[in-house]
């Protein structure tokens, strides 16, 4: 296992390694936030709309709360929603894909029918409608984004399982009486694990983008200030562009969002390349 991770790391491009470092850096920013951010992320701790200085590293927002502390804490909200959605939709979708691919027949048709519908329906408007109706807490967000995100991994895993099902060793194993769970554990899982990992990455980045988009419209968790919410507040400040405040209040969340998204995309592409090469 450790050897596998080492080979993957060696095969990454320079861009991939830098991107991975960025992602780990952002996660560290969140987890070490009591040590890294000296001020509170909830209580005003300085003058309103102050420019970046030695005391407040990225300035303050319109309530006087330190922006760097908000970003550190908000990273947690974004990352948690991303990981939660990735696990729920990635693992759940892959499981459904395995079931559909292995059993075939009516179950396959049912699952694929629902999958088709989820892919055809417009995703962002549906997420907006669901978010408006059910409220926008963290677990609600995870479920709303996961409802639409499970379709893609289910499809991919199902086609892989369908092609694996006819391999000779699977046929031999099932002729010896191997049940579904044994086949899953011993034979299917190593085959689909690379696919599942790549899909998890993709869903992770998609969830962060979706959550930021929803927060930008106003459907974010108001307590856990994710980056999209910070951006929403800053862009709705009257006359934000005609003052100097945007230079830190808008640029900082935007810069962090873009770098996280680019880093995730880069790592996703590299993983895909590495995984497909081993084939």
């Amino acid at each position: 296992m450790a050897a596998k991770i080492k080979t993957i790391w060696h095969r990454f491009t320079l861009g991939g390694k830098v991107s991975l470092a960025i992602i780990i850096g952002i996660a560290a920013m969140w987890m070490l936030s009591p040590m890294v951010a000296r001020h509170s992320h909830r209580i005003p701790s300085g003058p309103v709309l102050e420019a970046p200085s030695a005391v407040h590293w990225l300035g303050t927002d319109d309530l006087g709360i330190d922006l760097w502390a908000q970003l550190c804490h908000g990273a947690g909200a974004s990352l948690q929603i991303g990981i939660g959605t990735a696990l729920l939709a990635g693992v759940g979708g892959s499981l459904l894909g395995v079931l559909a691919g292995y059993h075939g027949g009516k179950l396959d048709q049912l699952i694929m029918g629902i999958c088709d519908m989820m892919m055809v329906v417009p995703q962002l408007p549906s997420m907006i409608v669901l978010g408006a109706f059910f409220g926008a807490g963290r677990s609600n967000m995870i479920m709303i984004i996961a409802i639409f995100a499970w379709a893609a991994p289910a499809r991919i895993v199902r086609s892989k399982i369908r092609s694996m099902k006819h391999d000779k060793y699977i046929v031999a194993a099932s002729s010896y009486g191997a049940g579904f769970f044994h086949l899953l554990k011993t034979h299917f899982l190593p085959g689909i694990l690379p696919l599942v990992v790549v899909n998890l990455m993709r869903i992770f980045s998609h969830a962060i983008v979706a959550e930021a988009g929803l927060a930008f419209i106003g459907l974010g968790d108001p307590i856990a200030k994710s980056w999209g919410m910070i951006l929403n507040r800053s862009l709705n400040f009257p006359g934000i562009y005609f003052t100097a405040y945007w230079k830190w209040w808008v640029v900082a969340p935007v810069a962090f969002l873009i770098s996280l998204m680019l880093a995730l995309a880069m790592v996703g592409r590299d993983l895909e390349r590495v995984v497909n090469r081993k084939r």
Partner: protein
Amino acid sequence: MIRRYVITFVFIVTVNFLIPRLMPGDPFLYLSVEDGQVNTSFSEEQTAYYRSYYGLDQSLLNQYIRYINNLMQGDLGTSIYHNVSVVSLLAARFPWTLALVLVSMTLSCLLGVLLGSLSVWFRNRRSDEILYTTMIILSEIPPYLAGAFLLYFMAAKWQWFPLSGGISPFNEFSLSNAGAYLKELLWYGALPVTTLVLTRLGGFYLITRNSLVMVFDKEYMKTAKGKGLTTARRLFRHALRNALPPILTRYFMSLGMVFGSAVLVENVFRYPGIGRLMQEAVMTRDYVLLQGVFLLMAVSVLLMNLLADLLSKKLDPRVS
């Protein structure tokens, strides 16, 4: 295949019906709630009256039938916030979004095809790699960020374009100065169109490039090169034609997918389309309007996907 779309449509309508009824809480719990102090409630007979008025005292099935009935007659309800029929609001705002989507997707497709062809022309050279990387980075930037960026630089700082809206609110237009009207429309719509074009450009570029590369590997392209045709003729006359089906399919599917981005972009530029209508409905919790807008968007997307499917079948009958 048509059956799949019909099933999806029925599913969307049903979900649209069920969602507000699945919400926790009761619409008639309180008449109004002051901040923690005085809660006025409906009296018993008022509650009974309003329940029967909105049909909420009947069974779910009866409500559903009434909903479908209204839908068939084109009645989508009355907006709570604006107090006019939802259909009239949608009819006023939808043409703006439709124009935005059509113009921006067409421009994006043309530009993407051009850039993709250029990329294949300069294949394996430095300019191809630079273009490829730029396009990938461009495709990752979410639409609202690109929109905010453009809004700051082109509208606020350099004042080349107006800050918001779809048309100047103060001028009167009539048939006589239709040219001026058109110019105003173009001027106000330039930034939203640019944002949407940039959002989708990466996708069109990549699919053009991939499709052209696959076509260039075919045997007839070797024959064309052997005949001594120039690169331009090979590229534009022979290769591009055969590479077109996936690009066109992508075009129609983008027409559907871009409705989601249009919600965000119209929000940034305050463009008077249904995307902004949806955001207003969310902010004022106008559920009737929200359902109507969502239904319209979903139907549009379904129609575009259906067109994409039919077109891809027509262009390339080999596709199953």
